[in-house]
């Protein structure tokens, strides 16, 4: 009787609003892992994600790259399953394993049919990868060689060169600013992976997200199955604070490409920052709103100077970057750079108009249903809500929080957070005129990426 009433209530709720959000169930597994579950039987499939505070931000000096390598080898051999077994068995049942790795988070995802045979087999493989990785030494050597080669390749490509210089300029010696070097990879030993794994992949810091065609009872068993035998793990799940204020800098790095790749920015905000919504909505107006942002309008629509120009905040456990980026032919790099600077300065100084704010809200609120229109997207929200311990009502509150943002809040938040006079700027592929006088970079390894192009 109770269930019947409940489902009628849910039905009415869903019918009364177009913005019905998924009902998130949350509990702690016996293992200690936090679980976030949405039950949905619309499609015969299950999506799962298990995340740990074990991203590259948890690397320590002298052992850079260990977090990434540990994560990368989770599915390359576990107790009783070789790397080929893992890949083959997943393929045999049409299951797909994916990964989420960033400075904060290391997580494996799984998509499988929900029919019992396929689902059980897929979850068993995921459980093995998470709980019994072997980090075989021969495979480590092979993966090191592959990674070194790909690092060397990226050191020749303007986008990667720019990213690396930018990260260092924005974050200095903070782990968010580190990019793995070939020498770091060469040093990695199997024992480093073992140690990192045992310290950081513990159940008490694990977040399990489950979305799809299973019941609550099944979800409880699955969450426990995936986390019951994780290491004890005593690593601090917090990342050191980021220095918010940086000195202005500008690096010009030669490259033979026809375009300059420009990045500009500063440390931005953390995921739980109270300015999150004003900055998010404000940034939509500045450079986040696709074809209708100010940057797009100034640089592309009015002048045809770039195909893509954007700005965004990357909210992380600690403040991630606020970043503006574009690519433009070298001859007009300086012109577009000053245009972007002007646009940003005007934005920070004068704020946004009521009309712009209204348009931004219309898009973000009106487009809210598109954010949760698939199991995949809902799974991603579950992971983020769990990982950053956002309120369970995050999705329910989202549109109201956007609605409440005022022009004054945006102006105020940007003024406090973004100082147009204290930005890190990186230009890879410098205009010919100053190709010879390219200033040395503040960061050591970068200058070797190329010199004296365009002769």
């Amino acid at each position: 009787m109770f269930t019947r009433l409940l489902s009628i209530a849910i039905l009415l709720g869903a019918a009364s609003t177009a913005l019905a959000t998924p009902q998130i169930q949350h509990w702690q597994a016996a293992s200690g892992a936090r679980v976030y579950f949405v039950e949905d039987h619309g499609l015969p499939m299950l999506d799962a994600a298990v995340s740990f505070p074990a991203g590259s931000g948890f690397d320590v000096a002298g052992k850079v790259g260990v977090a990434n390598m540990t994560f990368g080898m989770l599915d390359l051999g576990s107790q009783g399953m070789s790397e080929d077994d893992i890949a083959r068995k997943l393929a045999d049942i049409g299951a797909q394993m994916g990964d989420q790795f960033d400075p904060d988070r290391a997580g494996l995802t799984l998509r499988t049919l929900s029919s019992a045979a396929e689902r059980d087999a897929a979850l068993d493989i995921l459980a093995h990868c998470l709980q019994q990785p072997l980090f075989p030494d021969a495979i480590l050597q092979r993966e090191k060689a592959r990674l070194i080669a790909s690092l060397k390749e990226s050191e020749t490509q303007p986008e990667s060169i720019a990213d690396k210089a930018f990260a260092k300029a924005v974050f200095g010696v903070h782990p968010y600013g580190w990019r793995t070097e070939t020498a770091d990879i060469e040093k990695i030993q199997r024992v480093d992976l073992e140690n990192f794994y045992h310290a950081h992949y513990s159940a008490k810091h694990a977040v399990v997200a489950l979305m799809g065609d299973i019941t609550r009872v099944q979800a409880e068993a699955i969450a426990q199955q995936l986390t019951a035998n994780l290491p004890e793990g005593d690593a601090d799940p917090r990342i050191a604070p980021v220095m918010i204020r940086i000195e202005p800098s500008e690096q010009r790095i030669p490259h033979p490409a026809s375009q300059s790749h420009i990045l500009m920015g500063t440390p931005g905000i953390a995921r739980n920052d109270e300015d999150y919504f004003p900055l998010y909505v404000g940034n939509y107006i500045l450079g986040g709103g696709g074809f209708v942002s100010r940057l797009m309008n100034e640089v592309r629509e009015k002048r045809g100077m770039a195909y893509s120009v954007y700005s965004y905040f990357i909210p992380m456990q600690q403040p991630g970057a606020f970043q503006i980026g574009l690519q433009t032919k070298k001859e007009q790099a300086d012109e577009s750079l000053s245009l972007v600077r002007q646009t940003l300065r005007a934005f920070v100084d004068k704020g946004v108009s009521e009309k712009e704010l209204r348009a931004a809200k219309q898009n973000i609120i009106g487009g809210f249903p598109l954010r949760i229109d698939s199991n995949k997207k809902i799974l991603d929200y579950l992971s983020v809500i769990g990982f950053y311990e956002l309120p369970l009502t995050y999705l329910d509150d989202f549109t109201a929080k956007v609605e409440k943002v005022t022009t004054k809040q945006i102006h105020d938040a940007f003024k406090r957070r973004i100082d147009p006079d204290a930005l890190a700027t990186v230009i890879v592929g410098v205009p010919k005129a100053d190709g010879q006088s390219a200033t040395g970079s503040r960061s050591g390894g970068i200058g070797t990426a190329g010199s004296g192009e365009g002769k």
Partner: protein
Amino acid sequence: MRIRLIVIALLLQISSVAQADVYEKTLGNGLKVIVKEDHRAPVLVQQVWYHAGSMDEKTGTTGVAHVLEHMMFKGTRKVPVGQFSKIIAAAGGRENAFTSYDHTAYFQQLHRSKLALAMELESDRMHNLQMAEKEFNKEIKVVMEERRWRTDDDPHSLMYEKLMATAFSEHPYHHPVIGWMIDIQNMTAADALNWYKSWYAPNNATLVIAGDVKASEVFALAQRYYGGIPAVKLPQRKAVGEATQLGIQRIVVKAPAELPYLIMAYHAPTLRDAEKDWKPYALEMLAGVLDGNSSARLNKALVRDQQVAMDVGTGYDSVARGPGMFVLEGTPREGKTVGDVENAIREQLALLVRDGVSADELQRVKAQVMAGEVYKRDSVFYQAMQIGQMESDGLSYKDIPVMLRKLQSVTAQQVQDVAREIINDDQLTVATLDPQPLSDKPRHTGGASHVH
């Protein structure tokens, strides 16, 4: 045996699902409207597919299909420049467009209540586009920037462009979708307008609406917004093709990079008759056997066991208006050459031609195909894409379940037969990237790092 039974059961279930909830109607002016109902979320996507892509272009104006795609956002008499995107944004929508060899498509994703608005805007620009010189002159620069970014400064894209230009000497796939830079530089607003007037017409388009909609309501709205647009006499499409290649072709591309790279492309058929053809299905299976998962043949042999390559891949697309290619690619490990990778790939192909594929391997690929059919239903956008692409590329959305059934019925013998037929040096084009240093300092060799 058990697995086989499950797969058949799934197949039956999915085949019926794939056809369910799809409705079609052709308006009096020739516009075909296809509706895929999917009520999981209160959203919809509108896609208009024009059956004209870069393969319909003429020498001297390559890239015009793509330039016109950009210009489609530049205003009509009713909706001035910039307004299209603003109105969609204000409705909470996301929008964009894409051009390929075979077609050009425009889409908006919106809440289900916004269909009329999306149709009003999209139908308006189907026949009322303004081609202002001022806007064209700015936008053509954007396209040049796009070309620099996508192709000129990207060694692998550049190589792919040269490969296509070599493998196809007669067929228009010879030309890149974005166009040659000189053609973009010389393009005029009149070229773009001419393209628009030639190909943008209801009788050369398919409208696909997917999502939380009712087909009958969609048809009524489509009639209201698109029904009055006059049909146009389309230019005659001359048959194009590619004569048989007369021997192996090799090209080298030099570009700033660290690692060499190899692409091997064999001419291959594409799907013409979904029911009768078998080779394209066998080729899809062949690609899966070689590269369907990380323990599939190529990765296992070249990357994991022999450690000749740091990456390998296989590509084949059975759906296209033009001819197809069966493509293999790889990046050598440090200390290995593109020649080593080529030899190792050839060795795997020879093994396959000689000994065929195992039942397990084939079954594994089929299991992935079937699961993929379930997973695709998680994306309304992708379901609409698949319908639009089939309709634009000479097939029908009704062929989607046929293809699924045919893929499941491919035999190991067919995979071996098709491999034997297409793995033929005379039909092969090989492109290699010769990486160039960023500066004139000498290249380092061997495994030592040059960074520290």
